[in-house]
């Protein structure tokens, strides 16, 4: 039986390897084009924000001159020519005009480059997914599964109006089990963002906050403009099973950030921390549940081992939750599942990673050997 399963799995792997090779040959040219388009888009993105940043600083200095009226022969005295005087009452308009003249064409070029890059990226991703997994349904341009994300309780700061973006969604039906996989980006009102929001309300300090949050971040990032502010980016997967659970059990990455988020968030006051025995599992994960007994029933020793193995397979932080008749899984992926990473793209590794992530998620019910009946 084990030998037969081994042969089956080896056969499956060989078939997938040859499919990956085939897909790579089909999209190699497109990957190269996307790399060039991304480079061009990032160039204009940086230029646009550098101009904005420089102007922002110059405007601050220009305003600062008023506070140092006796400065002669210094750097700041340069800005005196932009102060309104009776002989030149509109001198302070010059910097604004300059900003418009320089920023307008750069913004236009960036927008065009961004559109072209995104169109090519979505087309190529769609082609890759359809070639790799012809039996699944794939969609783009659809709204994010906000209801499922909120219900999962995986994200401590997600509220009804939190901005959630979707980069594509897969639905697969196998043996009456429907697995949904979405690539999502969330901007949460977490501790960091709340702190920044507070900073924005303090005069003078808010100048530096704006400079950091909206200018420097965009200049020094290699992410495209739409993905700079996400607090979570990656795969979100959900599936139903027949067994009804009364409470909800959430499994999070064991780190300070998860603990802090849980502590400060008002969304999750009913849950208790569950202390489990498996050290391999507890070293990596934190478990919170509304029902101690049910959490231990759900998280059997075997399931804990499989979750650890699943994390290794994804090679990324994973979050899981069980509620009612649903299981939710989130896998962090800074580049996103249906977006390409920065750097050279003409490598087969890109296709291998996409295939591995989708395949693992599609097999999640089998991987975790969930009792679906």
């Amino acid at each position, binding site marked *: 039986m084990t030998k037969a399963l081994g042969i089956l799995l080896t056969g499956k792997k060989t078939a997938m390897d040859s499919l990956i090779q085939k897909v790579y040959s089909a999209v190699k040219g497109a990957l190269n084009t996307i790399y060039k388009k991304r480079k061009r888009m990032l160039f204009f993105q940086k230029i646009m924000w550098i101009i904005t940043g420089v102007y922002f600083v110059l405007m601050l200095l220009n305003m600062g001159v008023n506070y140092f009226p006796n400065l002669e022969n210094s750097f700041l005295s340069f800005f005196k020519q932009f102060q309104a005087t009776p002989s030149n009452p509109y001198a302070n308009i010059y910097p604004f005009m300059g900003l418009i003249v320089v920023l307008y064409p750069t913004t236009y070029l960036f927008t065009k480059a961004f559109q072209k890059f995104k169109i090519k990226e979505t087309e190529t991703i769609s082609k890759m997914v359809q070639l790799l997994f012809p039996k699944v349904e794939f969609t783009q341009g659809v709204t994010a599964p*906000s209801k499922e994300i909120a219900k999962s309780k995986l994200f401590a700061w997600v509220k009804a109006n939190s901005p959630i973006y979707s980069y594509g969604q897969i639905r697969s039906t196998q043996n009456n089990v429907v697995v949904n996989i979405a690539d999502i980006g969330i901007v949460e009102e977490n501790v960091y963002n709340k702190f920044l929001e507070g900073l924005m309300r303090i005069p003078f300090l808010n100048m530096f906050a704006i400079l950091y949050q909206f200018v420097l971040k965009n200049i020094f990032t290699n992410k495209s403009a739409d993905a700079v502010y996400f607090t979570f980016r990656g795969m979100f997967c959900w599936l139903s099973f027949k067994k009804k659970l009364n409470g909800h059990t959430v499994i999070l990455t064991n780190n300070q950030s998860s603990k802090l988020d849980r502590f400060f968030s008002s969304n999750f006051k009913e849950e208790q921390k569950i202390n489990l025995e498996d050290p391999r599992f507890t070293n990596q994960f934190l478990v919170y549940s509304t029902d101690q007994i049910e959490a231990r029933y759900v998280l059997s020793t075997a399931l804990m081992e499989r979750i650890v193995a699943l994390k290794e397979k994804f090679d990324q932080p994973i979050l899981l939750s069980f509620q009612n008749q649903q299981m939710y899984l989130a896998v962090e992926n800074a580049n996103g599942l249906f977006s390409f990473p920065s750097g050279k793209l003409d490598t087969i590794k890109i296709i291998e990673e996409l295939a591995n992530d989708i395949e693992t998620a599609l097999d999640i019910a089998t991987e975790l050997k969930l009792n679906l009946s």
Partner: protein
Amino acid sequence: MQMLENLPWYGYVILAIAIISYGYRYFKTAKEGYDEADLKKAKFKTSEESTLSKEQQFAIALYTPIAEWWGADTNTLTFLDPKSSNRYLKRWRMDTKEGYWGMTEYFMKDGRRWYFDFIYNMIKTQPEEKWDALMKDYFGDNERAFNYLKILKTNKALNELKQKGFISFDSEMDLGIAGYDAATLVGQARKAYTTNIITEEEAFKVIKFARKLALEHFSSWEEFGKSFILGFAFDQQHAESSYREEVYHIYKQVLENDQSPWNTINW
């Protein structure tokens, strides 16, 4: 005014650009601003005088999203008042017995599903170069059919529904739009009864047909709802986008609100 007299030359340039840009926005987009969607909260009004059976209430509920848009009761055959109902019927040229039955027989026999089913299957199964000939063979010079082809070919309605979160996958279009036809039949029968164009018995005959049509095609409110909204988006692409926005807003509430007939009456 004195301030304007002292402007430097570039000041006048900026002022001119600002006036032109404001004028452009005013004349070009002011209309859209005027037609901004009026997003209403669904009330799911019920009349205490209702005498409808469970079956009849179920059939009346098929038309809920549009009935809510009008603000009509959810459990009566009467639809608002004769004046409002007649306004609708006039627009569809159904304000006479002949006009009503002509349109109703069309919706019972063919409806919008006649167009949708053929064009959707043609796009799915036939190469694009054959479409024109196939369309002419089937529809002749029917202008509506060619408009629908354009909508389906460009995925205009589908993309709109995906962005709203009502449809996720292209395959959901396989449901067809019989749900929209069934809902339309119910709505028209209610209005025609309210304006005394048809009798109560005649209205319930049509409504019974609509109920049968819905039950034959769908097995849940969710399926019916998708078919309804797909048909609505497909058929109403020519209408003001604000009207579609308003109905989408109501439809979402009909799906989610606990008081909605779609959540209180079993399929």
